[in-house]
């Protein structure tokens, strides 16, 4: 990234998306909003916000707490799970400290079992996420789960969550997602005028924040991006290889992969993962008979690899490739993430045969020990262009 370009969100937290999100959550708590911790993109945030609460993402991306976690958890486990658990048992996670309740979805085996170990720390509501999302029963069951979440929140916080408030949150989310997508479109410009770091500054905040709180920021961001286009400001070089990232959630210490790609001369133009664009890509049907069913239908479309057969992963990738025009796809798989790892084969075949793009899978964790190995692979990928 050109150090001379003023960051899009120039609030003292540029490049530190978690700190900005934390500052927002703290400010809301001070105004009386309870905080509800979530572990997943499938958590129905509209129900949480309809109660006047603010969601806090508890997924952790720091290597420093992994050692503590490995006293209890096996080393051969996803670093995100280990890091998150490590923060909790060392009582060093500010997001968890602020959370008064925790929502936990049964996404993957590792998370499911880790939730059991933390269930005594806070009131926890485990949601049974269906994994064949196109089945009618799956949508009905997830609707039931979301309504049970509402009941849990009402009891835990002694507040009511009426349907019309949920409906209002649906509309606000849709407006926010529309604006986020206008911003994402600037990454599709050739050459791209927004960096991955700036995307993260926005997506981390936009996950916790309600739309109306950040509309001014998003509008200002769009104006700044339009000015960049007018002024001819862009990232990398005109012909830098354009990289689309897919795979597991990538944040914090795992962003070493992004830095290596940039140091090798690439520019990241799209991040499919749930830490970035994934959860902003669709609308929730508004003004239906049942807002919970509408929420259920939208959320079950999120193509995480815990779903099967997850064909939407490939169709969403098709859309992203058409929109962002990458030269290659880099699939980041965290250690021990079997579902994304097995699915990478399908992604590779699809990306190569349908789109003729180069593809690289990087299996990694949060440590710095494999930086040079990753660098060799990324540089070789660029050499193959």
């Amino acid at each position, binding site marked *: 990234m050109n150090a001379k370009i003023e960051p899009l969100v120039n609030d003292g937290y540029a490049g530190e998306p978690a700190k900005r999100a934390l500052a927002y959550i703290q400010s809301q708590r001070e105004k009386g909003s309870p905080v509800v911790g979530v572990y997943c993109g499938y958590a129905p945030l509209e129900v949480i916000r309809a109660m006047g609460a603010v969601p806090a993402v508890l997924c952790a991306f720091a290597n420093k707490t992994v050692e503590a976690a490995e006293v209890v958890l096996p080393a051969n486990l996803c670093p995100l799970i280990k890091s998150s658990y490590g923060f909790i048992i060392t009582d060093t996670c500010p997001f968890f400290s602020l959370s008064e309740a925790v929502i936990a979805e049964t996404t993957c085996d590792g998370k499911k079992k880790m939730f059991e170990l933390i269930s005594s720390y806070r009131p926890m509501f485990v949601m049974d996420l269906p994994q064949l999302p196109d089945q009618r029963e799956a949508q009905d069951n997830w609707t039931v789960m979301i309504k049970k979440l509402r009941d849990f929140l009402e009891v835990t916080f002694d507040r009511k969550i009426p349907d019309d408030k949920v409906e209002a949150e649906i509309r606000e989310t849709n407006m926010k997602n529309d604006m986020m997508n206008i911003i994402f479109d600037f990454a599709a410009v050739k050459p791209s005028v927004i960096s991955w770091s700036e995307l993260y500054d926005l997506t981390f905040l936009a996950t916790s924040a309600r739309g109306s709180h950040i509309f001014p920021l998003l509008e200002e961001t769009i104006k700044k991006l339009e000015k960049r286009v007018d002024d001819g400001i862009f990232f990398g070089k005109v012909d830098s290889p354009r990289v689309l990232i897919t795979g597991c959630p990538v944040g914090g210490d795992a962003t070493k992969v992004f830095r290596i790609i940039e140091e090798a001369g690439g520019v990241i133009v799209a991040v499919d993962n749930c830490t970035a664009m994934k959860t902003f890509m669709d609308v929730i049907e508004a003004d239906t008979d049942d807002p919970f069913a509408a929420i259920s239908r939208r959320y079950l479309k999120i193509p995480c690899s815990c779903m099967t057969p997850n064909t939407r992963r490939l169709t969403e990738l098709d859309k992203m490739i058409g929109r962002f025009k990458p030269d290659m796809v880099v699939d980041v798989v965290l250690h021990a993430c079997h579902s994304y790892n097995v699915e990478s084969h399908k992604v590779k075949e699809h990306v190569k045969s349908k789109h003729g793009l180069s593809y690289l899978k990087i299996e990694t964790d949060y440590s710095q020990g*494999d930086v*040079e*190995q990753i660098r*060799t*692979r990324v*540089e*070789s990928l660029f*050499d*193959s262009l």
Partner: protein
Amino acid sequence: MISAGIDIGSRTIKLAVIENGNVILTRIKANSYNPLEICREILGDVKYDNITATGYGRNLFRNYYDCHVITEIKAFSVGVKKFYPECRTILDIGGQDTKAISLNDTGRIGKFEMNDKCAAGTGKFLEVMATALGYTLMEFIEAGLSAEKSTSINSMCTVFAESEVISMVARGQNRAAIARGIHETICRRSLAMLKKVDIRGKVAFVGGVAMNPCVCKILRQEVGPALFIPEEPQIVGALGCAYATYS
């Protein structure tokens, strides 16, 4: 124009020099704890107009010499494409890493797979096993070649395999058969990696372990006449660097 290529590997440093497209010099020296000193020695009085470096020591070299750097994948791809154009697949087993590369129809890098996180399946693995069996490396290779049968080992990890071999020796099992089994293990791992990149056309077997006749014999049995072993398999990366600079 004189173009040089230097491949700074874990066990050896290789130098190749090309003048007007012709190879005029190749050198190999054992690496040490001070790779820069070995680089100085190997470069000696060699005159060149430009130089490209590869291998794990390439960025260190770049801090001290005015040079271009390329990855080993690229270096071996360029070297094979230029000097052994009938080969479309490359298997490189080095001192501490292994790689398989397939080239597409235009000779550019198609697929590649690397094992650079673990000593299993590398030259290091063979050295450790030779010592565990009480052989020098040459004796170990001879034993493998002459063995009438083969005892397979189960451990994939070099450290655990060493323990397993020591236990076998302590139980009086035939050392030559174990040596053969170890060579077969390394070939099996290499073939598995080759299959991931697709075997196309001839397979150039390069890197230090390509000088091991026992590995070559077993691989040839599996890959058949498609296996091609250059006269100097260690130098291909440096040749690729020199040619990359030249072109």
